[in-house]
C-alpha cells in the first residue's frame, strides 16, 4: 500500500476486521509516515504486546509495539496507550494498534482480538475506528500549510 491511491486519495490507515473462531481478526496497514511518527515518539525501542494486556493475540509472528516517551495530548475520542486491551474502552476508541511495529510493511500486521461482535456491532466498531483514525491523522500527522502574508499600507501624510 505504498502511497496507494484510492478514489483520488492516498491511503494512510487501512483496517480490516473479520469474525473468526478466535474472536475478531484485525489487520492494520498504514502509510509509512504513521509508523515513522510512532517510532519517533520514543527512541525506537519496542516491547512485546503481551506485557501490556491479554486481549490481542499474535497470529503469525510476535507482536511488538513502539514504546513512546513523548506525552501525547489526550483526546476525548481515541486512546493510544491501551496496548493489548479492547478496542472500545470508556467511550473511547483504542487506536493503540497504530503503535504496532511493522504496520507499514508488506500486508501490515494482523492479530486476534478477544471478543465477540454481531455483524452490526462489527460495522459500528469499524466506523468508529475510521472516524477516530481520521481525527488522529488530522491531530498529529496531516501536514499543515499556512501562508503568512505581510502587507504594507502606504499612509498619505
Amino acid at each position, binding site marked *: 500500500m505504498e502511497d496507494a491511491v484510492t*478514489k483520488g*486519495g492516498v491511503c494512510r490507515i487501512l483496517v480490516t476486521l473479520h469474525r473468526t473462531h478466535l474472536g475478531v481478526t484485525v489487520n492494520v496497514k498504514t502509510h509509512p509516515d504513521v509508523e515513522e511518527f510512532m517510532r519517533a515518539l520514543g527512541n525506537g525501542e519496542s516491547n512485546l504486546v503481551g506485557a501490556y494486556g491479554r486481549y490481542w493475540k499474535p497470529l503469525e509472528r510476535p507482536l511488538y509495539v513502539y514504546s513512546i516517551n513523548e506525552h501525547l495530548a489526550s483526546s476525548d475520542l481515541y486512546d493510544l496507550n491501551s496496548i493489548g486491551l*479492547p478496542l*472500545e474502552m470508556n467511550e473511547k476508541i483504542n487506536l493503540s494498534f497504530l503503535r504496532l511495529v511493522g504496520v507499514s510493511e508488506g500486508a501490515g500486521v494482523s492479530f486476534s482480538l478477544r471478543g465477540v461482535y454481531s455483524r452490526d456491532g462489527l460495522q459500528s466498531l469499524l466506523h468508529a475506528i475510521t472516524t477516530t483514525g481520521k481525527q488522529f*491523522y*488530522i491531530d498529529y500527522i496531516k501536514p499543515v500549510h499556512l501562508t503568512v502574508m505581510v502587507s504594507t499600507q502606504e499612509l498619505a501624510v
Partner: protein
Amino acid sequence: MKSLQIERILGKARNRVYRVGVELEGGWRRLSPGVSLARDGSVKIPPEYVAVQDIQPDGTFLKLVRIAIGELQSEPLPVEKLAGWVKQYYPHRVNETCGLHVHMSFASARHYQMLMVPEFQATILKYVKRWAKVEALEPDHPIWARLSGEYEHCTNHFWPDLQAKANNKDYDKLREGNRYTAINYCFNMNSTIECRLLPMMDTPALGIRAIQQVIDITNASLVVLAEREEKVSAQVLDNGDTEEEGACVYV
C-alpha cells in the same frame, strides 16, 4: 422478528455446545456438604421448616431447620453430564419466581458470534413454546408468562454487543443493554450465551428435557446460520477532502 426454520434438523444437528452451566433456583431441605447457594433476591419462597436429627452427647433430638433458598450454580459441564447433575441437585421446592437458567459456551468464538442475531432469540421463543405445548404444560404454568415477553426477567430485547461488553452483574432492569433478556450474551462475564427463558419445572426430568431443548435449538440454529464470514474494511484517505464516503474517510 422471524425465527429460523429448523424443523427438519431439530434434535439431529451435531452438538456445538462445548460446556453447559445450569442455575437452579428454589428451596433445598438439605444441601450436600461443600455445596453453597448464591443469594437471589428474585426467588420468593415462603419460609418453610423441616425437622432434622440433631445428635448431641446427651441424646438425639429433632430440631426445626429453615430450608435454604437461593440459586445453585453448576460447574461448566459437558452436555452428557448435565442430566446427572440436575437430578442430583434439583431443589425440593420451586414456584413461579424460580428460574432455570442455561449457560452455553462454544469451543469456537465464530459459533458464538453466529448466534448474535435477533432470529436466534425468536427461534428459542418459538421452539420452546412448541415444546411446552407438546409437554402439555398447564395453562397456569409460569413458562407461558415468560414466553409472552412481558416477564421483566426475560424480555425480548436484543442487545448482543452491549451485553457482551458488560464486565459486571448489575440489577438495573431499565438500562439499555441490561441482562434481563430471554437470551443474554454475557461474553465478558462468563464467555457464555445465557438462556433466561425457562422457569424451574416441577420435576428434574422435565427440567432436563427443557434444558436439552434449548441446547437442541441452539445446535440447529447454528446449522441454519452457517455461511461464509465476510471481512469488513475501511480506510482513512488523504486527498484533501473531509467527506466520509462508504468505507473510506477522506482527510
